[in-house]
């Protein structure tokens, strides 16, 4: 059972047992059962960004495909009666993921100067705080009466 072996054994130890090192020694590379997948994913990212951190058309197509698939999942989720009790958190989760994908990759914030991210995220945080306060206000005091 390779998965079990990966999960519970790593070089004779559980993968979470990172060996202690002295101050002088470099920290060991963090090994975990998902290492292989992350390696493959990193390789893929490197391939579609030509290894330079600049996006290629393939890269954009991949992001668009992911966005399309998430939208399909959202619509499917909405149609399943048994999953209705999880509708609100799931839809919030999916929309946040889509939001981040578009902002980070299509809008290039991942590659651009940090100042742009700072400006946008600051406004986002203010917006979300206002939004939450408004909802809390309406929940506890009601609106319009």
């Amino acid at each position: 059972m390779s998965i079990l072996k990966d999960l519970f054994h790593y070089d004779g130890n559980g993968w979470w047992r990172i060996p202690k090192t002295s101050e002088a020694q470099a920290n060991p590379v963090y090994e975990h059962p998902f290492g292989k997948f992350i390696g493959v994913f990193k390789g893929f990212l490197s391939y579609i960004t030509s290894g330079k951190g600049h996006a290629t058309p393939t890269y954009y197509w991949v992001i668009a495909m992911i966005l399309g698939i998430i939208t399909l999942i959202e619509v499917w989720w909405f149609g399943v009666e048994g999953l209705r009790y999880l509708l609100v958190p799931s839809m919030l989760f999916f929309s946040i993921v889509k939001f981040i994908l578009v902002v980070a990759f299509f809008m290039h914030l991942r590659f651009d100067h940090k100042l742009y991210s700072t400006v946008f995220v600051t406004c986002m945080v203010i917006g979300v705080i206002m939004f939450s306060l408004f909802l809390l206000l309406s929940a506890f005091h009601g609106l319009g009466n």
Partner: protein
Amino acid sequence: MSNQGVTVHHGEEINNSTGVSNKKLLMWVFLGSDVMFFGTFIGTFMAYRNKSLNGPYPADTLDIPITSISTFVLLMSSLGIVLALHYLKESKMGLAKFWLFLVIIMGMIFIGFQVYEFSHFAHIGMTPQANLFGSTFFTLTSLHGAHVSIGILWLIFLLYNEYKGNLTSENAVDLEMAGLYWHFVDIVWIVIFALLYLITAGDGVPPGGLPWTAGH
């Protein structure tokens, strides 16, 4: 005048202490302000959710399959604009024009869906005057539609300039600005689609009567 410290990035001179393009920074500031603008309207919609005193309710009106198609079209238009920008930067003008044209068409399709949706709603009695749901729904989606329409006009202007030879890889930053705006319109719709459509679509008569007046 000395040119010291001046860098050129995609045709735009960067000669300030921040080291970033003024145009792009201004656009991000604008988008940040627009986030708060839309946040207010989305917050209002959610605060008034399930508080309509009379129908039609979301369950009677919203058509998820139709809106899913328009959502998909808008998402793909975002892909189109990054590809248009990519090819413009590489001076592949034919491909850049093709994708920009396609984005404009997709934007128009989205607006077409919205016009169809609004006229259908009006036909079944769901107007901005009908109830709280109608007021908040139309205010938010119309504002978003106005943003998309402005974006389409902007892109048409850029496509015209591209054909005239005024938009090249040298000033690709102009298309980048429009692209940022277009993606922003897209992310706002991502949130609207989740909150106004998917989460709200099942709402009928509020459970337990009318919570707005209950207990008062």
